[in-house]
């Protein structure tokens, strides 16, 4: 295994981008990253693209070839692979690209993530999202995707005394961060009252506890670390990549309030990087729902199980806290174009470690972590990055 570095990133604006097609979005993100890296088409050994549900969202499968084609690489015949792992598709695409460079097979790969979610109408987006849960034994009986996370929240509140206000604070914090991110879907702050009084989606969660339906794409360029400085002055090294799985249905888990996939993916990553949770300076975590960020800070070992709500009260995860979480605005405010999310998390941490995160910049950030969940925790991908 050899070291792998990131030499370019590109993220589109996230939001309801009605005037932009799937092809335009992935090409825009890809061009930004490739131009930043300064690599030429003939130097690219492989493409990976994470997309959760293009077949239902835009009626198009075979995304690997499509992305190579619309990016202008079809005549170069570059191997191009689509990766699907529900909401962790982007993070897993990065991991597959990382493994291919680490193995020595490829020197330079481009990893994209995309979802174009607003080309369907009515409840089709919600129905497509439900396919990441167990269709036959959860969704069939009326469990919605927010409903499953809501059941985790009910249990967390019951077992650990987590409050409705603490859940709301997660959304408030992430909107405050999103207000500073020019690419965010929601560039505005919200109040605790607004979150608590929002229309109910699934008790105890309301509309402002849930990440939105979004369009967007993100791309990173990976390179063998020993060659990275040939392309840019400030590459960022991927010092660990962890992945784990669990039962598809939430009800099959050992424990409702712990995502064992996070625990195991994090353990793998911390071991590879030879680091502990306290060594992380900044993190992008999977806050698809407010309760998910509380679970994540616990399962990643930043706080003890059950203390996630209190950590929010104690402002540990704000921009000026001990461990700033979701400086980008997170899935909640930046937006959650499913396949793009895991790649955009990497791009945000790269910006933090390169010192280019502008108003969101965390002082002296040296080590950052990304955490990308698929479904209700049936898949998890964790990466740890370090400035070079």
């Amino acid at each position, binding site marked *: 295994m050899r070291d792998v570095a990131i030499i370019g990133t590109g993220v589109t604006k996230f939001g309801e981008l009605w005037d932009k097609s799937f092809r335009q979005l992935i090409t825009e993100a890809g061009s930004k990253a490739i131009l930043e890296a300064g690599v030429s088409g003939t130097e690219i050994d492989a493409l990976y693209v994470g997309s959760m549900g293009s077949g239902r969202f835009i009626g198009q499968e075979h995304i690997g070839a499509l992305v190579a084609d619309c990016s202008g690489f079809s005549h170069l015949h570059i191997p191009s692979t689509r990766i699907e792992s529900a909401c962790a598709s982007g993070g897993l695409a990065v991991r597959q690209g990382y493994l291919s460079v680490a193995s020595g097979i490829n020197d330079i790969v481009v990893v994209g993530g995309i979802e174009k979610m607003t080309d369907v109408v009515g409840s089709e987006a919600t129905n497509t999202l439900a396919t990441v849960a167990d269709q036959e034994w959860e969704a*069939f009986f009326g469990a919605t995707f927010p409903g499953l996370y809501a059941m985790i929240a009910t*249990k967390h509140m019951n077992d650990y005394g987590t409050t409705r206000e603490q859940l709301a604070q997660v959304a408030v914090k992430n909107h405050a961060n999103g207000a500073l991110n020019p690419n965010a879907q929601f560039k505005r702050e919200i109040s605790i009252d607004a979150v608590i009084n929002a229309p109910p989606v*699934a*008790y105890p*969660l309301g509309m402002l506890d849930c990440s939105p339906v979004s369009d967007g794409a993100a791309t990173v360029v990976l390179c063998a670390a020993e060659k990275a400085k040939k392309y840019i002055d400030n590459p960022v090294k991927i010092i660990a990549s962890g992945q784990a799985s669990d039962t598809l249905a939430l009800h099959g888990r050992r424990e409702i309030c712990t995502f064992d996939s996070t625990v195991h993916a994090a353990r793998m990553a911390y071991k590879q990087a030879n680091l502990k949770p306290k060594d992380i300076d900044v993190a992008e975590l999977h806050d698809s729902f407010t309760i998910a960020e509380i679970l994540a800070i616990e399962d990643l070992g930043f706080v003890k199980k059950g203390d996630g709500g209190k950590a929010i009260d104690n402002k540990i995860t704000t921009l000026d806290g001990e461990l700033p979480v979701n400086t980008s605005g997170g899935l909640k405010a930046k937006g959650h174009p499913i396949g793009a999310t895991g790649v955009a998390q990497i791009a945000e941490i790269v910006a933090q470690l390169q010192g280019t995160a502008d108003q969101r910049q965390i002082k002296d950030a040296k080590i950052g972590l990304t955490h990308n969940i698929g479904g209700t925790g049936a898949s998890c991908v964790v990466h740890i990055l370090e400035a070079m």
Partner: protein
Amino acid sequence: MENRAVPRFWREIPQRYSIIGNQCGVCKKFYFPPRESCPFCRRKSIGKMETKKLKGKGTVVTYSIVHDAPDQFEGQAPYPIAIIELDEGPHLTAQIVDCNVDDIKIGMKVESTFRKIQEDGYMGAIYYGYKFKPVG
């Protein structure tokens, strides 16, 4: 569930109508829905999984009230959904019926009842299966 062939549903009728699960002949652990092999005994359990009807009695592990429902459930919303631990051990997800939503609590004892689950539009198939109600 848009244009699914009917076998996708009738194949699950024993489980959905009667809560038929199975039991590992090696470690005696119960499973619902039935599994091809026991995840703990794996190869030793192949050919030794015994079909068992579960009693349909259990305890609420956690719950939510679904307000924003899929089209097939729209007439039912808001409705409670729960994870239930069956007395034999397996967990499943089902709606809670026949009680006030405010009375649902974690730890509440429930039993299964046969109900209509959803319908595939005005002209489509009607699907049946288990929901759970408070005991007594």
